[in-house]
Structures are given as C-alpha cells and as structure tokens.
C-alpha cells in the first residue's frame, strides 16, 4: 500500500509554495543563454517601473494633500478613479493576450475551494498594477494625513476596503477573460480590438480640438451618475471625514463594502465553477459528416500560372497567413489611417498641428518613406509565423530561392497595394507633388524596397524568432533583426540624402528621378543575384532556423 501524507499543508504554506514555484520558473527561464538579454531588459524595465511608480506616488500624495488642504475634499474621488482605472485596465492590456493557465493548473493538487479562492486573491496582489496601486493608495493616505490628521482612520479603513474591492474585481474580470480568451478566435478578436483602440486613440487630440467645447454639457450630465461607483464612494467617505460629515463617511464605506460583498460572491461562484472542472479546450467539438461539394478550383484557370508551382504555392500560403493574422492584417489598415492623420495635422489647407502646411514636395516623399519604414519591418523576420511548418520547406524538393521569391512577391504586392491606397488618399486630401518629385519618389521606393528585401532575406535566415498569431505577450523580434532593419534604413537614407541635396544645389529637378531609376535597376540586379547564395545560406542555417521556429 502506497503511503500518503497524513496532513495537507495549510493555505499560507500553499501560497508560499506557489510563490516559490513562480520564482523558480522565472529563474530557470533567465538561466538560459539566449535569455540573458531578457534579464538585462527586465532589470532596466524594473528600474524604470520603480521610478515611474515612485514619481506617480509623489503626484498622488501631493494631490491628496492639495485637495484636502485647499478645501476641495470631494476632488479626492478623482485620485481614487485614477487608481481604480489603472488597476482594472492595465492587467487586461498586459496579460490578456496570451493563454495563462498556470493558476488553474493548481487544481490538480489537493486544494480546498477556500484555499483556491485565497490563493487566487493572493495571486491578484502579486500583479504589477496591484503593487503600483497599493503604493499610490499609501501615498494618498500620507498626503491626506499631512493635510488633515483626523482623516487617517478613515483613509486607512477606506483604502483597505478599496484595495479589497479592486483585487476581487480584478480577479473576477481576469477569470472571465481567461474563460473567454481560451479560444484562439476570441484571443485574436480581442487583439484586433486592442489594435483598433490603439489606432483610435491617435484621433482623440484632433477630435477634442474640434468638438471639445460642444461636448462639455454632455459630460456634465454624465458626471452625477458616476457617484454610485466605488471610486466616487471612496472619495465621498474621505471628504465626509475631512468635513466631519460622518453620514457621508458611513454611506461611502457601506457602499464600497456592498461592492466587496457582491464581487466576492461572483468571484466565489466563478472559482467554484473552475474548481469543479471547466472545459477550456481549444479543440472544436466533433462535427457531423457533411456531403463535400464538388470542387471547382481545379477547373478554373490558375491566376498564378506564370509562376512555377512552388513559387505559386508559397505565395498562396503567405496570402492565407496574412489574411488570418489579425496583427499583420491591422498593420495594413494602419498606414493609410496614419497618412490621413498626419495629413490633417501637418499638410492640407487647414493643418491642426501647425499654422502653415508643409509643402507637398517634401511631405509626399516623407510620408512614403514613413510607410516603407512600417511596412518593411516584418520582412526582416519573414519566417516568424511559419513555426514548425518551416520543416516542410526543407523536406520538400525546392530551393529556398523559390521560397524567398514567393514570400517577397507577396510583400511586394502588399506594399504596392498599400502605397497606391495611401497615394490615392494623399492626392484626394492635398494633391500630388510635381512630376519630377513623384517619379523620383516612385524610383526611390523601388530602389529602397528591393535593396531592403535582399538584406531582409539574409536577416530572416540569420536572426529568426518565432512569433505567435494573435498574441502580444512575449512577442518580440530578435534584437539583431531590429538592428539590421534600422541599419539598412539609415544606410538607404544616407544614400538618398546626398542625391536630394545635390539636386537642390544644382537646381536640376530631374536629377533625383534619374539617379534613383539607375539605383533601382542596380538593386533589382543585386536582389536577383542574391537569391542563389541565400538558398545556400538557408541550407547552412537550417538547423538553427528549425530550432528557433519549432520551439
């Protein structure tokens, strides 16, 4: 008969074990050779984060002091709102993009539901947002006490209730997010919404400038409804304590306590569902057999018949990957949106950011260069999303020349589409530049893209880094690939600048177009002759490539 332990460890011992496990995992991860740069990055990020938390803490402390000593006690609610929004939103944006089942994995151990709940809450306190928020609440308590020492007991009590409410709510939201984001499609949709949000934020300033005044009455109507939310209740309780209006303090405290109770009940029910065993599988449910429609694709003429079957196959695969990758797909939407944004801010008849618009002769080439900077970046790690599929390129009877041709053709097609779209938007908003500048820009684009592709192909073989679809957490390009990308941009910019300078100096408007056309021809020839050496390099690098992408 096997022996089992007579007693289980207590809740606090289990929390200690879980914390130790997390620490060991982090340590082992950083011990790997290629993660030593990550350690340095973490140290730098840690120093900056600490400085940021301390700096903002000073702001919170000073704010609490100023509001209470200046007779604006009710305004302290604004500080509670700041803490509340950060505590609830920051974890969503940082942790919501990956699959994080570590906490649920604890269920394989003999834990009681109570222990599972307490460990869940403790997990919430170890979050960056929670640590920062606790620091800010402490700073507010110090600031308020310095201004009015009689509020200290109320500050301590309300801050504790506020902290409990925030942890419980954050864990509840996190737990629901975990359930929703367990499915790949939901994760990608979430990621797409995040990108959309990030792009939309860019328009806030122009919108506020245009509609700010007309929106003010609407904002005033909304504000009273916010008083029933926890941060406003916390502010009311502290203001009451400062003004010796203890009814307000009691109402505020009771309100937050009610929220704590409500969220605790919901979180308990949620954790109980997890505890009983919840299905979060990625696999689709068994499907019923269906009658397969007669395939028609074989009868249709092949739109890519001018290419070899292998190049056409890679091109089709790349196109399908592009349309199924929410991040890459939204990258395609962003450039024309930014052209629109920058054009309204800096060019056109009524720029919002400047008194006088920038000349189209300068603005147009500048915008095209900016677009290339964004759109060419993924080419420097072009196998990133292939994952284990990279093995197919090596087991199939093809040369990497064909693989690169397929990939580069898709990149070139996508660039052509994006640049055309942006040029149409540009010409509609501010008009096109003069013919010499337009032709010089087009020739420079061909020179730049072909030159970059040659170097980007080399970079993709030399510094591969696997990236996952629809995921943001832990998604980083290789540092060397980023350096190569920047270096290439600087080099090509360095070649272009003297050409433009000599043109202005000599007054020859057509000189840049002629020189860039020559350089484009040289770049195309260079690209063409680079494909065979790159195929040989792929054969040499195949082990490191497969290893990096199959992890």
């Amino acid at each position, binding site marked *: 008969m*096997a*022996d089992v332990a007579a007693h289980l460890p207590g809740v606090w011992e289990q929390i200690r074990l879980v914390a130790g496990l997390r620490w060991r995992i982090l340590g082992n991860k950083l011990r790997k050779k290629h993660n030593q740069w990550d350690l340095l990055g973490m140290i730098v990020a840690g120093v900056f984060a600490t400085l940021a938390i301390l700096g903002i803490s000073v702001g919170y402390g000073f704010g609490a002091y100023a509001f209470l000593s200046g007779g604006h006690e009710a305004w302290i609610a604004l500080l509670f709102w700041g803490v509340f929004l950060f505590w609830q939103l920051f974890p969503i944006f940082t942790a919501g993009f990956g699959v994080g089942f570590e906490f649920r994995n604890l269920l394989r151990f003999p834990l009681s539901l109570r222990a599972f709940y307490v460990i869940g809450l403790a997990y919430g306190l170890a979050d960056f947002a929670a640590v920062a928020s606790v620091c800010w609440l402490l700073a507010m308590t110090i600031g308020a006490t310095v201004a009015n020492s009689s509020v200290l007991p109320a500050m301590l009590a309300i801050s504790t209730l506020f902290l409990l409410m925030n942890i419980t709510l954050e864990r509840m939201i996190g737990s629901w997010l975990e359930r929703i984001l367990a499915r*790949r499609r939901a994760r990608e949709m979430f990621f797409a919404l995040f990108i959309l949000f990030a792009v939309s934020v860019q328009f806030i300033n122009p919108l506020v400038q245009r509609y700010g005044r007309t929106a003010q009455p609407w904002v005033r109507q909304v504000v009273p409804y916010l008083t029933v939310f926890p941060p406003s209740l916390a502010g009311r309780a502290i203001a009451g304590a400062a003004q010796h209006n203890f009814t307000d303090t009691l109402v505020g405290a009771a309100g937050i306590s009610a929220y704590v109770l409500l969220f605790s009940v919901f979180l308990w029910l949620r954790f109980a569902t997890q505890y009983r065993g919840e299905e979060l599988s*990625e*696999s*689709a449910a068994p*499907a*019923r*057999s*269906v009658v*397969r429609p007669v*395939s028609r*694709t*074989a009868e249709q003429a*092949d739109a890519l018949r001018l290419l070899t*079957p*292998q190049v*056409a*196959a*890679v091109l*089709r*695969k790349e196109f*399908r*990957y592009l349309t*199924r*990758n929410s991040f890459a797909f939204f990258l395609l939407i962003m450039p024309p949106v930014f052209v629109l944004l920058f054009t309204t801010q800096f060019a056109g008849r009524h720029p919002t950011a400047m008194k006088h618009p920038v000349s189209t002769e300068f603005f147009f080439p500048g915008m095209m260069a900016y677009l290339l900077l964004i759109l060419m970046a993924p080419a420097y790690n072009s196998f990133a*999303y*292939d*994952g*284990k*599929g*990279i*093995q*197919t390129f*090596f*087991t*199939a*009877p*093809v*040369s990497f020349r064909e693989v690169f041709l397929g990939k580069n053709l898709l990149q070139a097609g996508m660039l052509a589409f994006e640049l055309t779209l942006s040029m149409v938007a540009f010409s509609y908003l501010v008009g096109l530049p003069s013919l010499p500048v337009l032709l010089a820009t087009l020739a420079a684009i061909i020179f730049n893209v072909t030159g970059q592709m040659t170097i980007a192909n080399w970079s993709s073989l030399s510094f591969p880094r696997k990236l996952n*679809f629809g995921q943001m957490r832990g998604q980083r390009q290789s540092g060397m690939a980023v350096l190569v990308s920047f270096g290439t941009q600087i080099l090509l910019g360095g070649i272009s600048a003297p050409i433009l300078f000599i043109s202005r100096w000599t007054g020859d408007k057509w000189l840049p177009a002629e020189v860039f056309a020559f350089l484009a021809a040289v770049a195309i020839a260079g690209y063409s002759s680079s494909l065979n050496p790159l195929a040989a390099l792929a*054969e040499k690098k*195949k*082990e490191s490539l*497969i290893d990096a992408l*199959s992890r």
Partner: protein
Amino acid sequence: MTDAAIVTQKLTRRFGNLTAVDGVDLTVAAGQFFGFLGPNGAGKSTTIKMLTGLLAPSSGRAELLGLDFAAHPVEVKRQIGVVPEGMGLFERLTGAEYLQFVGRMYGLDRPTTQRRSEELLDFMQLSDRPKTLIADYSHGMQKKLALAAAVIHGPRILFLDEPFEGVDALAAGALKALLGRMTERGVTIFLTSHVLEIVERLCSHVAIIHKGRLVAQGSLDELRAGIAGEEGSKTTLEQIFLSIVGQDGGQRPQLEELSWLM
C-alpha cells in the same frame, strides 16, 4: 526487391561534445517495412532527420535510391515522404489548403493535387471540417494530416517518426492496412515507434540504435535467432529489445528503490 533503398556509411552527427549518431552503417532494401528502434535519446530522430534533409551529418554519407543525398538533395527529396518529429505543419492553413500546398511544392499539377487531397482527406476522415484550421485540430487529426501530406506525391520511400502516436484505433487500423499495401507495391517504409507490438506486427526488418551506435540489424527471425528465449515460446520483439539494450547493466530502473510505492 534486392536493390537497396537506403544505405548509410559511417553516418555521424555531433552536437558539440555529444555524439548523437556515431558511425551508423545501415542498409534497407527496397520494399521493406523497416523498424528503427532505440530507447529515448538513442539517436533515432537525429538519424531520420539526416536521412530526410532536416539535419546535415557531421561526417559519413547517406544514399537513397542510389543517389547521394548531399549531391542530389532535390532529386532525393522528390522521391521521399516524411512525417517529421513535431509534424511540421503550417497551422494557419486548413487541412485541404495544406495538402494542396504540399502537392504543389512536390510539383503535382493542380487537378491532380486537388483530387488526391480530397481522396486523402476522405480516407483520413478529415473531410468533415473543411474550414477548420490545423491549429484547431486535435493531436491525432494533425498526425493523420501529416501522414496524408507525406504520401500525396506517391513517394518511393516513406519516413515515419512515431506515426501512430495519438491516432485512434480505427484510423490506426486503416493506416496500417494502407502502409502494408504500399510496401506490396514496392514502397520502402522506415518507421520509428516506441510501441514494440506495432513494429513487430508491421515490420519485416528491424534495426536497434543505442547511445548513437547501431547495435543490431536484420530480419525479425535473424534477431530472434541470436536471442535465447523460453523453450517452446516465440521470442517477442520486446524480449529482443530488452536483451540487446539492457545488456550493459544498470539500464533498467531498480524497483527496490521505490518500495514505498508497493
């Protein structure tokens, strides 16, 4: 059927100080169903990777269908099919899209690729989810798709690294029948598996690799002849395997150390 499909001479692969495959001389005749066995970390997958172009040997040579792999990689790859370790699938394609991609990479024309893809998806019972991405397939479904992709171009040699792992019994039965028919038609199958019963049932010839070195090679009967089994009973592959691999003492864990479990 006496022509050699696979011949290796002193095939060696080193990773730093570790020699994963050490001077392996292997001969597999055309049309053989060949089982390649060994304990974990013995060098099976490394050998398969060198024979399929996924890994370059440190020294030695491999000849497939009479062609030197190093000198004619594309011509050799055209005639072999592979289910590599980890399957090597493009997970953001559907099953049909992946098979069409692979068919075209092996130079099949579009109508042939289309027809074969549909037949293979039907055979593997994967045709009922035409829009499901491979990323959403179960492990067993991915394995069946990888097998379908390995045979779509009608290879003359098929390399299978743990092909039945995660595949349900029904599909495994159909696959075994398919592989058996392929060998009858002259296709050479080179298979690794940890399930010795499968190897014993399917393979006519076996090689055992241990610590990077080939320690046994021959038909099952030849290997049985070299082992003294119980009188009156047929020696199983498991007994052969254990007697060869477990010879150097201390290989099998000592159960006495886990007395608290018993």
